[in-house]
């Protein structure tokens, strides 16, 4: 198989414009003859479904929650980037493009990323027009803040609930189309198989999660916008239901899966509390604008803190190691996520972690300096030039509350500690997956007619995603890319007519889904689905986690292969097929996670370099920074499924060409 990325010719700043001008169109009177399926209604799916419906296509949209408004995108906290240069700090399309490529450690596609930067400004205009209440300054204009890995303020936000507001915006557009009868919305439905006819994607098999009924749905094109696969680790910041099933099923049908080993570990999550933990909670990275990260300088202090004999507030300023400011003076606490995460692990591995459990994993995110600074500023702004210490502290805390109140409350509810008084405890956790289904410039997978958008594809973030860029990508894909590229594809389908769900391909796909469900329900094993999921998570976190090495990866590949055998033999799934059955839902998802987990380890093993979220311990420089190998690994690793044994998957390489950006070592010092 030869990978054709279909990147248009021409100068980077003109590629998308020229390309769009020459794409084929579907005339308005022909659009109602065409059906489109959208799997997933997060930012990517909801925006795509709303756009297609508005253009006049017949749209069927699917999500596993009870409402599209609950897609995982709702949880995004910090913000969304756009190159609007409202703050006059030198931002531009090129700079956003440059930061994203560099942030991704030169493992993303230039043309895709430039397109993303180009449409970013439009996204904000679109959302504001929909009534998304972004934060504003006193002049009534939009406010911005900065995020890790950049030196400009280009992030638009709505308190700590940006994803919620953006998703509700997309959901409202989608709701309008549902109300108008142009979208059939299938809530509580899970796509379990893709149906191909003559090699093209022509429909899906879905399970109605309430009745258990297996349904056939046909269409002229299928768009997968099913989100990321971070839950392969069991513990992650993803919603509990997030899964890889849609992406993995199309992979098994011929779509290549790219860069599966690129997983983003987010530096600011609440540390694990104990063995019953079900998921991890993120504290928005925007907190790094105001918080300073440190651990004790002396090991004895760290030990005393863990033993509960010392409080962080009792550690003198000179005994604190602000290790990010020390190591990376130019970016300080705002280094990119992969850098910040590894630096925390390095300190904890060296014995300076502060969490009082058997992991000892945790560092401090301290707001006391900010409270003083902002308190003073506010007092001065109010004309009080001689504020007392108490006044300063009160004003400083009020400033923090206005900016991050909901996050502080969330932290307090979970940990029972007051972050206004004592530093937050944070530790890195699995957060976002840069890998995903391989797509070309049109966002089409290697299966004709099957497009993939948002976190489910691999295309824009390289080996590491900068903060506030996933929301941007999801909406860019759905509002501004797919409407053009999918129409181009569909232009050849205006005479095809309705696709019958009685075709043998549908019958067969339905049977295979039913067979796998029945197999689980009649398995008579002894262990719960979660038991296996947790074991998979353990292997993944320890051997395919923040740092990986050859030996660990090799072990992981074997251990997961064995786990897979055991899972299919010994899993116990209660209940029936024809009812709401959450254990069955989980079993079907975990089966796919196990196979993907193995592929992640295989992909990590072949990539003999360190870059972004993929840190191979053998490849680091004297200061512990990533050592990329551009000579040999400047490619996208795209895997082709070759049957039951994942070890047989075949690697295809898409060379990455950097014509408009000069590759350099990634330096944040």
């Amino acid at each position, binding site marked *: 198989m030869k990978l054709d990325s279909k990147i248009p010719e021409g100068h980077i700043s003109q590629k998308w414009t020229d390309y769009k001008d020459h794409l084929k169109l579907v005339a308005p009177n022909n659009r109602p003859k065409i059906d489109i399926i959208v799997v997933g209604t997060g930012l990517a799916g909801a925006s795509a479904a709303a756009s297609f419906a508005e253009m006049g296509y017949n749209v069927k949209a699917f999500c596993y929650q009870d409402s599209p408004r609950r897609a995982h995108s709702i949880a995004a906290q910090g913000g969304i980037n756009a190159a609007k240069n409202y703050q006059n700090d030198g931002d531009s399309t090129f700079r956003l493009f440059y930061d994203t490529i560099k942030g991704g450690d030169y493992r993303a596609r230039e043309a895709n990323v430039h397109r993303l930067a180009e449409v970013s400004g439009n996204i904000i205009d679109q959302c504001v027009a929909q009534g998304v209440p972004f934060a504003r300054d006193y002049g009534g204009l939009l406010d911005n803040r900065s995020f890790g890995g950049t030196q400009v303020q280009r992030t638009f936000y709505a308190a700590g609930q940006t994803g919620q507001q953006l998703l509700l915006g997309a959901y409202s557009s989608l709701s309008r189309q549902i109300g108008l009868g142009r979208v059939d919305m299938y809530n509580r439905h899970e796509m379990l198989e893709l149906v191909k006819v003559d090699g093209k994607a022509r429909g899906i098999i879905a399970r109605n999660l309430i009745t258990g009924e297996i349904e056939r749905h046909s269409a002229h094109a299928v768009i997968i916008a099913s989100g990321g696969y971070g839950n392969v680790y069991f513990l992650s910041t993803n919603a509990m239901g997030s899964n890889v099933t849609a992406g993995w099923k199309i992979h098994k049908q011929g779509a290549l899966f790219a860069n599966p080993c690129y997983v983003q570990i987010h530096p600011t999550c609440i540390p694990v509390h104990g063995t019953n933990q079900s998921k991890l909670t993120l504290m928005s990275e925007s907190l790094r604008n105001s918080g300073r990260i440190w651990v004790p300088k002396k090991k004895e202090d760290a030990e005393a803190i863990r033993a509960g004999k010392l409080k962080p507030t009792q550690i003198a300023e000179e005994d604190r190691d602000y290790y990010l400011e020390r190591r990376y003076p130019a970016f300080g606490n705002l280094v990119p996520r992969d850098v910040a995460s590894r630096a925390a692990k390095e300190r904890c591995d060296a014995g300076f972690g502060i969490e009082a459990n058997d992991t000892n994993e945790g560092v401090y995110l301290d707001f006391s300096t900010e409270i003083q600074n902002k308190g003073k500023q506010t007092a001065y702004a109010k004309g009080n030039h001689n504020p007392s210490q108490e006044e300063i502290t009160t004003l400083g805390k009020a400033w923090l509350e206005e900016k991050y109140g909901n996050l502080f409350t969330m932290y307090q509810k979970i940990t029972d500690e007051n972050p206004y008084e004592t530093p937050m405890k944070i530790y890195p956790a699995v957060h976002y997956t840069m890998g995903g289904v391989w797509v070309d410039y049109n966002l089409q997978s290697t299966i004709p007619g099957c497009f993939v958008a948002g976190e489910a594809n691999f295309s824009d973030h390289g080996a590491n995603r900068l903060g506030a860029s996933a929301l941007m990508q999801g909406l860019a894909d759905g509002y501004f890319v797919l409407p053009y590229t999918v129409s181009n594809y569909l232009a050849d389908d205006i005479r095809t007519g309705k696709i019958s769900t009685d075709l043998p391909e549908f019958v067969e796909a339905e049977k295979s889904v039913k067979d796998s469900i029945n197999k689980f329900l009649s398995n008579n094993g002894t262990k719960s689905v979660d038991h296996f999921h947790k074991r998979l998570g353990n292997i993944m976190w320890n051997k395919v986690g923040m740092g990986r090495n050859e030996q660990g990866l090799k072990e992981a590949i074997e251990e997961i292969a064995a786990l897979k055998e055991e899972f299919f033999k010994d899993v116990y799934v*209660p209940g029936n097929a024809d009812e709401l059955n959450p254990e069955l839902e989980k079993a079907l998802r975990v089966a796919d996670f196990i196979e993907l987990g193995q592929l992640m380890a295989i992909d990590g093993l072949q990539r003999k370099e360190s870059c972004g979220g993929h840190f191979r311990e053998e490849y680091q420089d004297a200061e512990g920074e990533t050592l990329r190998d551009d000579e040999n690994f400047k490619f996208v690793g795209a895997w082709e499924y070759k049957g039951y044994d994942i070890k047989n998957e075949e690697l295809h390489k898409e060379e990455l060409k950097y014509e408009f950006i000069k590759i350099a070592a990634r330096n944040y010092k």
Partner: protein
Amino acid sequence: MSAAKNINISLQIWRQKNSKEKGKMETYKLNDVSTASSFLEMLDQLNEQLVNERKEPVAFDHDCREGICGMCSLYINGRAHGPDTGITTCQLHMRMFNDGDTIVIEPWRSAAFPVIKDLIVDRTSFDRIQQAGGFVSVNTSGNTIDANATPIPKEDADKAFEAAACIGCGACVATCKNGSAMLFVGAKVSQYALLPQGRVEATARVLNMVRQMDEEGFGNCTNTGACEIECPKGISLENIARMNREFLSASLK
């Protein structure tokens, strides 16, 4: 911080096979629950125990477990989202309970939210209300004016945001003795009423949303204010007042 410890509890949980069959309360014992666990992690633990005993686990709704998706519900000891204010069930932690406690768990109960199974109810009536008018009719083309072309007073933007923060969980309905959805609908109507983008269709919006709300079988608001107290996002009763004003002026047009 109070150090985490393990407690033993007893649970009374509503079990109902599906929307057609009758349900009943069942009692379960659960030991060694860490007080650092969330309420839903406690239910996970119960379900693990039930699966190991080859019994059917309890079905309950949840997804983000961060207090933002609005999927979790649960009526706990007679209160929507349990014994704490300003939170969802997924944010409720077991440190709120004592060793030996009996905890009663029921689904949301409202005519407009039929039970699907055990503790899971159908809240799609909220979606249908939104579909009736909870949007700005702008095309998704991106050919809109520059976002800063219409300055919006910070105060209005903040108020719109506060209304928009509703997560659609339905606690307001569940806790209201009339099963009224006015807080939810009021929040939506307010968000758009406060922003210039939403003004053009304000009349049609409020009329359509209120009509749909009535059709879905939600009760009337008698201003008891229980909804505001149990709302995890602090949505204020002001929004109901604003909706009423919007409705009145729309009806007079």
